[in-house]
């Protein structure tokens, strides 16, 4: 969502975090991990006929942040997000929500946390086929014992929020894929969760609908400001929505960073491959390519450090003079030259050389 807060100096509190999290499928996975003391290779796992779906993953998701987990199919994204919500019991590691150890939560506590703090949207929508739209959206409230009137009112609000008003008596089978996912989104929001998990919510949709839903999500997040953990296998989608991205490969997280950092500084060749075809001007900001301000130079214009290159590229190239870069407080911290901007636009030089 690219809403990097100006006050980056005082980071928001951590909402959800995991440290050295492992999920190994197969018999006696726990003993296996314990005996190897966290140093496990792919060959070790293969020899023991185990699948290391998540390996030694550590992430910290901050309040109000859109955190994206990106990776190819089978890289362990779903498993990781299911561990974070404890739908799957992690094999090893730590997991905290609001500083509370989620792995120590009893079944009753877990139910309570999920009822009030967490919401989830699924790739294939997971709507209940026997309920209409209204009842589907109201379902999480129903099981909490909320009375009929309140829950239907609340559900109607959510249905309006996702622009499905007038379709509340339809059944899931009568809706298009995009509409079904809107129901899924409305349902997950009905309980006003603080943490919102979305597991490839748009992957089953057509490309055009997908873009529309992405815009919708950005709109919703601007209003709701949830803590979002969003899974995707689509790097463009990740760039478009993310505050930060974690890139997964074979169960391990190989890089975490802002879209800009990932694009300009890919940690490995693997990551670089994803970033190849990205439109850099749209990802990189002025701060990403600025040089120290040359003393005494008179700059024609000022741009904000967080401004994307795309937003001032035409002007700077036309004016053929450097622009000054200022931070949130208006202090000049550097300058960008037309040459650097052209290099970014043509895919050469700084930020592209990685």
């Amino acid at each position, binding site marked *: 969502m690219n809403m990097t807060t100006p006050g980056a100096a005082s980071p928001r509190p951590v909402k959800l975090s995991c440290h050295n999290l492992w999920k190994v499928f197969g018999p006696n996975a726990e003993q296996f991990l314990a005996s190897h003391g966290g140093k496990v290779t792919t060959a070790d796992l293969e020899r023991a006929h185990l699948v290391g779906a998540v390996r030694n993953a550590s992430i910290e998701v901050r309040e109000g942040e859109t955190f994206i987990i990106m990776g190819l199919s089978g890289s362990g994204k779903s498993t990781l997000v*299911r561990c974070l*919500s404890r*739908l799957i019991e992690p094999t090893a590691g730590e997991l905290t929500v609001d500083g509370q150890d989620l792995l120590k939560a009893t079944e009753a506590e877990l*139910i*309570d*946390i*999920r*009822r*009030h703090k*967490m*919401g*989830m949207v*699924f*790739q*294939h*929508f*997971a709507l*209940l*086929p*026997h*309920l*209409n739209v209204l009842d589907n959206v109201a*379902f*999480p409230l*129903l*099981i*909490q014992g909320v009375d009929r009137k309140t829950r239907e009112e609340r559900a109607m609000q959510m249905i309006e929020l996702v622009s499905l008003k007038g379709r509340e*008596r*339809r*059944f899931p089978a*009568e809706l298009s894929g995009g509409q079904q996912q809107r129901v899924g989104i409305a349902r*997950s929001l009905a309980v006003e969760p603080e943490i919102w*998990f979305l597991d490839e919510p748009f992957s089953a949709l057509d490309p055009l609908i997908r873009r529309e839903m992405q815009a919708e999500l950005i709109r919703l997040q601007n209003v709701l400001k949830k803590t979002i953990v969003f899974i995707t296998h689509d790097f463009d989608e990740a760039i478009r929505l993310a505050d930060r991205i974690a890139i997964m490969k074979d169960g391990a997280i190989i890089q975490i960073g802002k879209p800009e950092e990932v694009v300009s500084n890919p940690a490995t060749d693997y990551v670089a491959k994803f970033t190849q075809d990205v439109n850099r001007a749209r990802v990189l900001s002025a701060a990403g390519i600025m040089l120290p301000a040359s003393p005494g130079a008179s700059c024609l214009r000022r741009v904000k450090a967080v401004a994307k290159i795309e937003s001032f590229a035409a002007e700077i190239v036309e004016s053929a003079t450097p622009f000054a870069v200022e931070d949130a407080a208006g202090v000049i911290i550097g300058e960008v030259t037309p040459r650097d901007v052209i290099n970014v636009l043509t895919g050469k030089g700084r930020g592209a050389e990685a």
Partner: protein
Amino acid sequence: MTDVTASPAPGLRKAENLGQYMVPLTIVAAVTIFLLRDRLPSLNTYPDAAIIPFKDWVGAVMSWMKVNLTWFTRSLAAMMDVPLRFAFNLLAKGFKLGNGPEATMLPRLSWLGVVGVMGWLGYIYGGWRLALLCGGGFFALALFGVWNNAMLTLALIVICVPFCVITGLLVGIWSYRSPRFDGWLITPALDLMQTIPTFAYLIPMLLLYGASPVSALLATGLFATPPMVRATLLGLNKVPSEIKDFADMAGCTRRQKLWRVLIPSAKPSLMIGVNQVIMLALNMVIISSMIGAGGLGYDVLLALRALKIGQAMEAGLAIVIIAIVLDRLSQAIAHRQPAIAIAEGTWARHGNLIIAVGLLALTTIFALFIPALATFPKSLTLTTAPWWKAGVDWLTLHMFDAIEAVRVFVLLYFLNPMRAGFESLPWLGVLLVVVALGWRLGGWRLALLVGLLGFFAAASGLWVPAMQTLYLAGAATLVACIIGIPLGIWASRSDRVQSVVMPIIDTLQTIPMFCIIIPVVMLFRVGDVTALIATVAFAIVPAVRYTNHGLRQVPSHLVEAGQVAGCTRWQLFRHVQLPVAMPEIMLGINQTILLALSMIIICAMVGTRDLGQEIFKALAKADSGRGIVAGLVIAFIGIIADRLITAWVNKRKMRGGLT
């Protein structure tokens, strides 16, 4: 191919080679044993001295149960008797209040009301056509003067089905929740229960409860519950994992997850289970007339025993009508889409129920004053019995020679030689081949299983009757496949043929086993030929259905690939469609074998000499040990066939990557 690709470790290769020769080797061994039968008699005919007295053991257990569990059986019987009696009174007999001369009679439900409600149900769930089928079908019951007995049969079903459905649902949920319990107890028990022939269920019930409707009810319940367990298990397992995850994420408790998410999501599968329960219950209620169920089945039984073909046919037809109506109605209910607009208010929610109850109440009250509503006027009933009799008489007069010629021909040139062949099969040889097949197809576990089950047949001293059953079931399967598979192929290649064949097949499947025998007996009298024909008619259904389905399911891209490669139609069929559809076709054959086995047993009624006859006699003498062991032997034959074929299909699918 290069040398590198295909050279497994030498040890592996040796084992593989050994496996290849295993089956042929055992066949050679079996033939050798047979040829040396004079020198090795005990390897051909199981020695009497080595017979293990399973019969006596089972008999002892049953006697012990009879003596020591009376309190339990009695109270269970008393408990079941209450709703059953109520249903009997409501539908057929009327309520008698008080005793002696002052007793007042409350009437049973008026036939017109019942016909009306059936029509109304049909209308709600399937529109006018179903309304006509249901209402018309039940009206025919009144018209043909079998209303009373039909309602007795229906009463048993009405009480039995909810009982089976609830039990099945609960057991299914339980085994879903604990896979270990399912794997070790439920699935094997279900396999056994579904292969034990129907007659064998009657024996312990007869022993424990005597000949009474309660015995029939319990036997029916036992017989009809397994498909509900399976449907529940299947349905719950089939719920998409995302929906299960959703239930957890929404914060459902275990109970909420089950009843509010899983069960409703599994509803389509569950409803298929309910439909199967209804059909099996009807089937079994008819057969249970042998132990006092009464109703239409009893009419058939009496008429068959007295060889009154007309009456048997009439009652049989009434059963078929009930079967078709119940089947179509329950399927319509199962497939109904949820209504789009749900209006508010009591009327909208319960309107249909109110109409139905009102209809019954009104007609029944009117029946107090108008006798024609209470009992369908005798003068208006039609009886079809004379027509059937006339038809049969005509046939025997004009076609006797032709029919007899067919009968004798089949008997002399097909059945008798086959029978002789099967009867002289050496037990050890057969067992060796079966074990080798098991080992080849499914490893040592399967080999052990089929070996033990086969040995049970030999050691129980029932080897020869078992082979006689195998011969008849084998002959019937063979004929059913020879007719059914080409029919299925034909149906798969033409929508027109399919639209003619499949409804016939569907109807054939709804006809209770007992009723199929009747017309065949009319033409071919009693004996193996009748058994063969009736069994083929019953068992052909899956052969046709699975073949058609399997061929139609061949992915179109495979067919297109074949066409692009320039296959002729025959090549396409031979090299693409048939191989891909083969696993499905084999499953059909598997089903055909199981159905043939169960039908063959019923055919003991028309004088076959085999395990069925063994059970039939045991039933007559209430000899539980003998009957149950014979029933188990049949079940084991079915399980052996089932396991071997399933293993073959799985192996084949795995190789084709079509899992």
